[in-house]
């Protein structure tokens, strides 16, 4: 597209401009079972079109069709008013469609500039060598357009998650993208970085670029999208302007049943202190941390990504070794130097990355659930047959659905995989659960089930430390909220005092007003 057209497209964004791309009647099957069926979707220039649905609703499949990774079995794809058929993401890119996957496809060892030009025709010098000067210049120009001061010559692996996201966007722009598909772009971003990303999205749309925004975070969706399309079980449920929907309605459309309460938290009556931490310090990660956790209590641990919360929890679990400080379990000092000792004292940590830290992917669901109790259910070194019954019981109690107990765990959806990770820790019957982002990347239905489970566990008298970057989650579930900033506890609020403003102020260290714009 030429320059004037771009500008015109940008101006026409608000009105009925011809779509950047359009899908109609699209059906895609995998081995006889339908992933998406008869779905229509279109993206107008300059709009943010949110695509929502539970895990497995077909969002990714649909966007992979647009990106040329899958060919549709039925239906058609139109780009710029003409029928198109892509056989690879490269074709899609040539037509101005770029996808930024959840797991960024950048090359960590290469520099920002190099990443921007991977797979493209690179400028050459008169000698036939690569013209690095021009490439760096071009990279700088793109980054400036995005309004970020990134060094084009630094290696991508040194950048933060947010900066990498920006590099991925810049890469799409180098390819003159007219449509950018973002899959869960904020899942690893902090609140402030999310703000920055939204600013960039606004700039993009002002220039007439259309953005497809896939996310589980409802507040974000309502904040930035112009239109919302809901998919459920591969079917197109609704497309409507964001202004005509509210959160309640959206959740109902996604889940297919009315869902008045996402969060479940009963009246709590915390008992004895079961875990106490005094002056815990680990150089460069956290400093002089004190807190106490009582049985039947859910203690929220809020803070920005990188505030040291995960490191703190992992130190209590014995994966990291604190430089100083003491840990008391049931009033007695505990020397915990390995996960085994933590587990013996009744502590269990549920990691945030379920695929890389929580699950043994080649294992069946059963073997994953019983992994933590192998020593308990074996006799003379051989695994007892009671294993199957235990796994079956947790499948039932946590309503793990989607595959049978002996099927490989990677057949399950993300939400159900997360339940398997939780089941594994519950099998060990811990008194203290350290939950690290237990609902990240999990659909609304599974989320509400996990919340209910947490509530049940607290009622049974288990003590729960809930690390979460979702404020809503911490505020709704926790009896008490601790906030960490740069490795230190920067605030503690009772359930009544914990407001978004208070917590964000403590987490960022800035005046409340600046961050309260968020909501």
């Amino acid at each position: 597209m030429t320059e004037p057209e771009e500008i015109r497209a940008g101006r026409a964004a608000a009105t009925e401009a011809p779509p950047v791309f359009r899908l109609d009647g699209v059906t895609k099957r995998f081995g006889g079972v339908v992933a998406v069926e008869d779905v229509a979707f279109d993206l107008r220039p300059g709009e943010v079109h949110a695509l929502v649905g539970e895990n497995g609703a077909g969002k990714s499949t649909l966007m992979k069709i647009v990106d040329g990774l899958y060919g549709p079995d039925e239906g058609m794809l139109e780009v710029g008013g003409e029928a198109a058929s892509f056989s690879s993401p490269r074709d899609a890119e040539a037509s101005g469609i770029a996808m930024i996957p959840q797991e960024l496809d950048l090359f960590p060892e290469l520099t920002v500039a190099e990443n921007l030009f991977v797979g493209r025709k690179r400028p050459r010098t008169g000698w036939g060598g690569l013209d690095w000067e021009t490439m760096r210049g071009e990279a700088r120009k793109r980054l400036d357009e995005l309004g970020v001061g990134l060094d084009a010559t630094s290696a991508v692996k040194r950048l933060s998650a947010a900066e990498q996201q920006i590099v991925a966007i810049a890469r799409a722009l180098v390819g003159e993208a007219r449509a950018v598909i973002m899959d869960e772009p904020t899942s690893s971003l902090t609140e402030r970085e999310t703000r920055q990303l939204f600013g960039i999205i606004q700039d993009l749309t002002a220039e007439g670029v259309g953005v497809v925004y896939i996310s589980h975070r409802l507040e974000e969706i309502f904040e930035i999208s112009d239109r919302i399309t809901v998919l459920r079980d591969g079917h197109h449920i609704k497309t409507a302007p964001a202004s005509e929907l509210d959160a309640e309605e959206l959740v109902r459309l996604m889940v297919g049943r009315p869902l008045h309460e996402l969060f479940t938290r009963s009246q709590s009556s915390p008992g004895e202190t079961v875990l106490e931490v005094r002056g815990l310090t680990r150089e460069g990660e956290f400093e002089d941390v004190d807190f106490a956790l009582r049985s039947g209590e859910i203690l929220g641990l809020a803070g920005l990504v990188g505030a040291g919360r995960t490191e703190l929890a992992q130190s209590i679990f014995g994966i990291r070794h604190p430089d100083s400080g003491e840990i008391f379990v049931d009033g007695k000092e505990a020397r915990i130097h390995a996960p085994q000792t933590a587990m013996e004292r009744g502590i269990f940590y549920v990691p945030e990355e379920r695929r890389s830290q929580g699950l043994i992917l080649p294992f069946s669901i059963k073997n994953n659930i019983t992994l933590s109790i192998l020593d308990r259910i074996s006799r003379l070194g051989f695994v007892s047959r009671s294993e199957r019954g235990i796994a079956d019981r947790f499948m039932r109690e946590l309503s793990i659905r989607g595959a049978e107990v002996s099927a490989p765990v990677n057949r399950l959806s993300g939400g159900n995989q997360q339940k398997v990770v939780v089941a594994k820790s519950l099998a060990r019957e811990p008194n203290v659960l350290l939950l690290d982002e237990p609902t990240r990347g999990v659909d609304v239905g599974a989320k509400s089930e996990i919340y209910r489970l947490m509530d049940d566990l607290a009622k049974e008298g288990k003590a729960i430390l809930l690390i979460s970057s979702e404020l809503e989650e911490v505020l709704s579930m926790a009896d008490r909220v601790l906030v960490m900033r740069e490795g230190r506890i920067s605030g503690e609020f009772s359930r009544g005092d914990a407001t978004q403003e208070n917590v964000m102020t403590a987490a960022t260290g800035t005046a409340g007003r600046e961050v309260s714009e968020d909501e």
Partner: protein
Amino acid sequence: MSEARARVAGTESGARFRRYLGRPETPALAFLVLLVVAFSVLSDKFLSVPNLESILTSVAVLGVIALAVNQVVLCGEIDISTGSMLGLCAVAGGAAAQSTGGFLLPLVAAVAVGALCGAINGTLVTLGRIPSIIVTLGMLYALRGVILLVTGGAWITGVPNESRVLGMGSLFGLSAPVIVLFGLFVVMEVVGRHSTWGRNVYAVGGNRRAARLAGLPTNRVRFFAFVLVGVFVGIASMIYMGRAGSVQTNTGTGLELQVVAAVVIGGTSISGGRGSSLAALTGAILIGVILNGLVLVGVPGIWQQAVLGALILLAVTTDVVRRRLVGDGV
């Protein structure tokens, strides 16, 4: 995911077939059957009881070591020191046999030396946190050096017959090497399927971080996998000595790569977490069948290496294709 649901439905329809197709050793087994049929057609000498037994006897040393290295590979590590280790164990066992004779003492000596070597490998890999390929490569050279230092380059000859039982003996018409090979196979298969240790090996290889977070002793598991290799190499060295009757200083040279080849050809994933003892056994037998069959159908010896290499590549390719068919994701 809907895709996942699609896969589940797919497995329900052709469940049994897919489950067999999905087993790691299936392609190797199918290929083994194919080769046996082909060689039987091409040569009338191939399909006879004495020839088949001689194949199994000839791969016993390779197979026994492969069963143990298989465990190391399953837990995500590798051991390429077994060639020199076999030599050193045979020297230890041979020296014991020369001086005292008897069956048990040489075996104990060989196994003890093997276990010690394995413990060194295991310690360096777990506590030293050095990649296993480097550790065992170093040990491959170091142990060969020890052999030369200990023997001064001289052969060990005149091993008494009572010390050669594992190589020469037989029971119920089966040769001792074959009995040892299948005996250890059955033990490893049961251990792999039903024991906590076997489960731990798969877990550590499947995702070491997750295994550690579940409280599994990841270092202990890997350490003992290396020790197991040493023990099995010790046993294998007595089979070797029993058959050869003497021990040369170059005993076992090049064996380490054949062992890894057997494990991989059999279908155990080189990245760990997937595979079985049956895979290692199948891989070893496959190598024996090929080497034997090629000779019988009159293929010149100079072709052996090329054929073996092609086989390894074929095995890995089939594995990739099979995993795509089953929808395992590669």
